[in-house]
C-alpha cells in the first residue's frame, strides 16, 4: 500500500517540480477561440510559469476565484466582475482585450435578421418569428450578454416558449446543439471561427457596438485566500498588458480574420 502511494506521489511530484504553476479560470469562449494555445507557450517561455487553465463559464470562474481554487480569472462580464472586486474577492479588474458577439442562424435566415443594422431589431425579429433559438443558459458571460440583449429589446427571455432552448452548457456544446437544431444562437466570434461543426449555420448579424465583448483579468485577493500565488498573478498581469501579449493577441487570426483586439491601458 505505502509503495503505491509513494509511487503515485512521485509521479505527480515529478511534473510539479520544474516551472512554477499558476491556475487561472477562463471562459469557454476564450479557450475555444484557440488563443490560449498561442499565449500559454509564450507565457512559459517569457515568465517560466506553467499556466493551468480551468475552462468554465464566467459564473463558475467567479466561484472558483471566491473559493480560492484559482489564482486569477479571465472573464467577460463586467457586472459580475465589478461585484467580484467589490466583495473583496479580487484585488482589481484589468481590461485586456475584446472581441465581439455575433448572431448565428440557419443560412436561410427565416427570421430575416441579416438585413438589420441594430441588434435590438434583430432580437425583436427573432422573438416575433420564434425560430429555434439556443441559449447557453449557464450564467456565463455570453449568457449574461444574451439576456442583456433581450432586455435591451424590451423582451424577457423567461417568458419565451418552446422555441427557446436554454441548454445550460458551454459554448461548444451549445453550438453543437444549435447546429443540430439548425437554430439561432448568440456566440462570441472567436468560438464561432474556431468551431468545427458549422453544419448549416451562418453568421447572420454582427457589428453593432452593443455586441462589444470585453475580457478582463482579475487576480484573486491574497488577503482573502492567503495561499494564492498573487506574485505569479501580478507577473502574469504585467505580461498580459505588455507588448509581447499585444502582438500575439492582435496577430491571432483564423482564416485571415483577426479575433481579438488588444485594449489594455496603463492603469
Amino acid at each position, binding site marked *: *500500500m505505502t509503495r*503505491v502511494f509513494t509511487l*503515485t506521489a512521485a*509521479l*505527480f511530484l515529478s*511534473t510539479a517540480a520544474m516551472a512554477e*504553476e499558476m*491556475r487561472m479560470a477562463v471562459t*469557454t469562449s476564450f479557450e*475555444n477561440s484557440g488563443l490560449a494555445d498561442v499565449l*500559454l507557450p509564450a507565457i512559459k517561455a517569457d515568465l517560466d510559469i*506553467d499556466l*493551468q*487553465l*480551468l*475552462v468554465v463559464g464566467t459564473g463558475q470562474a467567479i466561484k472558483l476565484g*471566491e*473559493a*480560492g*481554487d484559482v489564482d486569477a480569472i479571465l472573464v467577460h462580464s463586467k457586472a459580475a466582475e465589478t461585484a467580484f472586486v467589490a466583495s473583496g474577492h479580487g484585488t482589481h479588474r484589468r481590461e485586456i482585450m475584446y472581441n465581439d458577439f455575433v448572431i448565428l442562424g440557419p443560412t436561410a435566415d427565416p427570421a430575416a435578421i441579416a438585413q438589420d443594422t441594430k441588434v435590438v431589431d434583430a432580437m425583436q425579429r427573432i422573438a416575433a418569428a420564434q425560430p429555434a433559438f439556443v441559449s447557453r443558459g449557464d450564467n456565463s458571460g455570453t449568457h449574461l450578454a444574451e439576456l442583456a440583449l433581450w432586455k435591451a429589446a424590451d423582451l424577457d427571455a423567461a417568458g419565451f416558449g418552446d422555441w427557446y432552448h436554454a441548454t445550460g452548457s*458551454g*459554448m*461548444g*456544446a451549445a*453550438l*453543437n446543439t444549435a*447546429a443540430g437544431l439548425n437554430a439561432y444562437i448568440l456566440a462570441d466570434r472567436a468560438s464561432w471561427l*474556431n*468551431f*468545427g*461543426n*458549422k453544419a448549416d449555420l451562418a453568421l447572420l448579424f454582427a457589428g453593432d457596438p452593443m455586441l462589444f465583448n470585453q475580457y478582463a483579468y482579475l487576480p484573486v485577493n491574497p488577503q482573502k*485566500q492567503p*495561499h494564492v500565488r498573487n506574485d505569479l498573478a501580478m507577473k502574469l498581469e504585467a505580461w498580459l498588458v505588455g507588448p509581447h501579449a499585444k502582438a500575439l493577441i492582435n496577430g491571432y487570426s483564423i482564416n485571415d480574420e483577426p479575433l481579438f483586439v488588444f485594449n489594455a491601458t496603463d492603469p
Partner: protein
Amino acid sequence: MNDILAGLAAALRLIVTLDAELVEISLRSLQVSLTALLIASTIAIPFGTLLAVQRFRFRRSVIAVLNALMGLPPVVVGLIVYLMLSRSGPFGVLGLLFTPTAMIIAQVIIISPLIASITHQAMRELWAEYHDLLISLHATKRQRIATLIWDGRRNLLTAALAGFGRAIGEVGAIMIVGGNIDHATRVLTTAIALETGKGDFALALGLGFVLIALALLINLGIHALSGTEREGRW
C-alpha cells in the same frame, strides 16, 4: 457515417504518428485509473470477502447500502469531492483540487462499491462451497479470507476489470475535480468532451476509439496473464 470514418482515420493518424499529446493523455488516463483500481481493490476485495464470510449485526444493511452505492452518480461524487477539496472546503489545505490525486480519490469512491459488491457476490458462492471444509480444518478468519481470495481470484479479476472499465470511461467526476487542465489533469475522456465542445467530432471520435482500444487491450492483457496460470502451477 462520414463522421465515423473521419473518426477512425483520426484515431489511426494519432496512433501511427504516436501523437505526443495523445500519448501523454493516454498515459495519464492509465495512471489515474490503474492507481484508483489498485487502491480500490486493496480496500474493496478484502471488504467484500469479509462481508461474505463474517456474520454481524448490520450485515444485511451494509450489503444493501453497498449495492445502492454501486449506482452512485459519478457527477455527484465529483461534486462532493470537489467541495471537500476546494480551498474553502474541509480538506482545502491539502491543495489537491485539480490534481490527478483528486481524480484518483473520486474514482476510488466511484469504483470501490462496485468492486466490493461483485466480490461479495462471488465470494458468497465460494464460501458456501468451502464453508464446511474450512471450519473442519479450523482455518483462522484470516486464512479463510485469504483462501477465498486466492481461489476466487478469477472472479475477483472480473470485479477488478469492471471497476477499471468504469474508472477509465468515467468523465463526469474527473472533469469536476480534475478541471481538464492541459498537461496536468487532461485525460482521454475529458479530452473527448473538450473536442466535442469544439465541434471537432473527428478528433473526439478518434480519441474515443483510442480509449476503447486501450480498455480492450488492458482486458485482453489481464486475461492472457490469468490464462497462463489456468493450469495452476505451484
